[in-house]
């Protein structure tokens, strides 16, 4: 194990599944060109709800035999996770992981589809007739355990459920584990599936748009739920170099905070968000002006976007505004992936750093004049960026930010 001083944490593998499609290549094209992959939800009958749209993963297939797990016992969330891990391993040039690793995953509801199925059976037929076998992958730590089991992995595993900041905190904790020398390798990310449970929940909160997901638009009126998974393989830099694998990017800063304001609403004064963003920037040893791009949480709810705009404006000061650092929310294209959102957004931010583009904030016709930001709306905006920050803000006032850098930029 390398010494504990100056340990740098690099990204060597990525796995991604979103409404855009399965895998890095498909997501890269769609993220760059600004494809709108949101449509009427099909996983259940959403027609009676205020919002009827979803960013669903279509045609997903894990078409390989499983080594240790029984496919019919797995929740969709586990299948998504396994498929993304397959991709990340290949990208990292790894057949499997033989050494002790740290695994941190973020999710809001884990195997909720399985839980819903069981409960529906009970409501319909009586709970004495409900099949408990469908519950074997319900609990939110089960999917990570499945991943460990399928690949015969060993190490330390943690499942974060910090609402919409889950994936970001999972990656942040893995970053810390490697930086402090506890581990040389980590798997970190987040996942969540489209379920009527969350759909009904966010609809009941009047947080879902009946029209279109338009982050930072003057007329924005709510979010669209999505599903998917984002996974990163993180390594200590010398460990990765010894393996001779390609370094895809670097994690250099992490910050987390709580609002202590309200159970569901963000603090309008954005104090918690400012604290998380500022801490991540300080942790990376840079100043706000060193950042070339902000991947915003940008849910498209009136409260969140205004709060985040205030936070960014406060942290970035004069470097923001209409000509300042570009800001965009990819939720406009794929929806809000809840526990997976921070992880998928980290993957896409790394993609942007590596490939040299800024993901567009689509559907934004007229930027809210109260959001004093340089919202990047144009598709195919090819530009070299060296450093970026990705923000996540969730229920319960959980805030988290990550600073990511292009490989070789430092």
């Amino acid at each position: 194990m390398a010494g504990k001083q100056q340990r740098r944490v690099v990204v060597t593998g990525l796995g991604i599944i979103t409404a855009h499609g399965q895998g890095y290549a498909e997501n890269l094209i769609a993220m760059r060109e600004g494809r709108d992959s949101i449509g009427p939800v099909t996983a259940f009958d959403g027609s009676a709800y205020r919002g009827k749209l979803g960013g669903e993963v279509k045609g997903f297939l894990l078409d390989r035999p499983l080594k240790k797990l029984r496919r019919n016992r797995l929740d969709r969330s586990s299948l998504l996770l396994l498929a993304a891990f397959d991709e990340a391993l290949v990208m990292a040039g790894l057949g499997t992981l033989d050494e002790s690793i740290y695994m941190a995953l973020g999710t809001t509801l884990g195997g909720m589809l399985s839980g819903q199925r069981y409960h529906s059976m009970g409501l319909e037929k009586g709970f004495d007739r409900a099949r408990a076998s469908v519950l074997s992958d319900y609990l939110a730590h089960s999917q990570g355990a499945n991943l460990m089991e399928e690949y015969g992995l060993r190490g330390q595993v943690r499942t974060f459920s910090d609402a919409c900041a889950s994936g970001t905190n999972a990656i942040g904790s893995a970053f810390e584990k490697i930086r402090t020398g506890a581990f040389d390798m980590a798997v970190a990310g987040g996942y969540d599936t489209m379920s009527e449970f969350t759909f009904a929940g966010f609809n009941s909160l009047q947080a879902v748009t009946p029209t279109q997901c338009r982050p930072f638009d003057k007329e924005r009126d709510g979010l669209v739920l999505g599903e998917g998974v984002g996974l990163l393989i993180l390594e200590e830099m010398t460990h990765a170099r010894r393996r001779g694998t390609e370094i895809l990017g670097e994690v250099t800063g992490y910050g987390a905070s709580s609002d202590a304001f309200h159970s569901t609403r963000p603090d309008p004064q954005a104090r918690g968000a400012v604290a998380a963003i500022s801490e991540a920037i300080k942790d990376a040893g840079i100043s706000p002006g060193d950042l070339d791009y902000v991947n915003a949480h940008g849910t498209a709810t009136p409260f969140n976007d205004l709060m985040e705009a205030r936070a960014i404006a406060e942290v970035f000061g004069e470097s923001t505004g209409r000509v300042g650092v570009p800001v965009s929310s990819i939720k406009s294209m794929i929806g809000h992936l809840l526990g997976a959102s921070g992880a998928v957004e980290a993957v896409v931010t790394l993609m942007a750093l590596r490939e040299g583009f800024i993901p567009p904030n689509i559907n934004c016709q007229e930027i809210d004049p109260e959001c004093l930001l340089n919202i990047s709306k144009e598709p195919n905006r090819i530009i070299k960026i060296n450093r970026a920050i990705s923000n996540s803000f969730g229920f319960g006032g959980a805030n988290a930010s990550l600073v990511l850098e292009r490989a070789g930029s430092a």
Partner: protein
Amino acid sequence: MSIVITGTGVVSPLGIGKDAFIRAFTRGESRLTGAVDIGARLARVAGFDFGTLFPDRRFRRAAVVTQYALVAAAEALKDAGLDLSTYDGKRVGVVCGVTHGALGYSCDFHKGFSTEGPLGASPVLFSDSVLNALAGALSLAYGIKGPSHTLIGGPDVGVQAVEYGAELVRDGRVDLCLVVAGEALHERTVEAYIKLGIATGDGEAMPAYGEGAGAVVIERDVGAKERGITGLAELASVATMVTPALEDSLRGVVEQALSGADLSSADIAGVMLGGGSDDFEGCVVGDLLPDATRFLPVKELVGEAFCAGTLMNLVVATHLVYEGARAVEGIGAGAAIEGVPISTGVDQEQRILFLVAGHRKEAGCLILKRA
């Protein structure tokens, strides 16, 4: 750097508040009911009047598991001599361990929209059913503005939460961290575990389930001393692990925890088992720590309370370390494990090791010693 536990709190079927809890524990008083029609023994928290115990009306509609956690946390903070309203909230963190969360609210919410359509979906039930509702409520109640995390898992997640809280303190992200775990009994949980054939008692014909919450405050030794507080126990080391075989995980965490505390097995005076997997936990401890005194797991008296049970065990272990032999004698009188001799002689160092298995081959271990 030494990390110490400066306050503990508990809500349990053995009593609300650690005095009542420890008193009933040392007497070995089981709160498990006899056979019930669902085929399990249950131990419920009795006499829990949230409005009296926690007057802050913002949480009167919160799920029971959140209310248990709030009350346990209030006791732990008071025990640690902390008034967080006078503390810099940015320097305080909260880490919660959760297994099932507010399952009752989840079921009611699901039933609402399933039977009545969108209008039957209650926003209150939904927002309080999310797994981090408990951490969010603690943050809100006490003005905690540092990191707020919820870790999900089986009984071992209580150890994970302590470990993560200790990391936040050790890494300087916070000065102190509130670590809480809660569980509320629900018929769907019990029914599912029974159907899945997951017994929770070694050789028990009928499984046993409990509920409640446990809370601890952890901070740097020097920080506690600056506040004029003496730690109840030092967190000498914590280890969590998962391997393809549970026995390897359990052995691994014991060895790692001993190594982390720079101790050998002979230095451990007493052992507590979580009871996540009695066979494996017992075998590993019998093999690696054959001479250590074994204390009664809380689970024997209150059933499987998952992550909350782990924090309850930690409250007991902290008490044993702080009070020393006096408490040990009490426990020796009423809490022998069948076939395992209980000695009352624990060395002056009072090092206690706690070991617990998770649901899926995970294991957690922590060692406490005199602060």
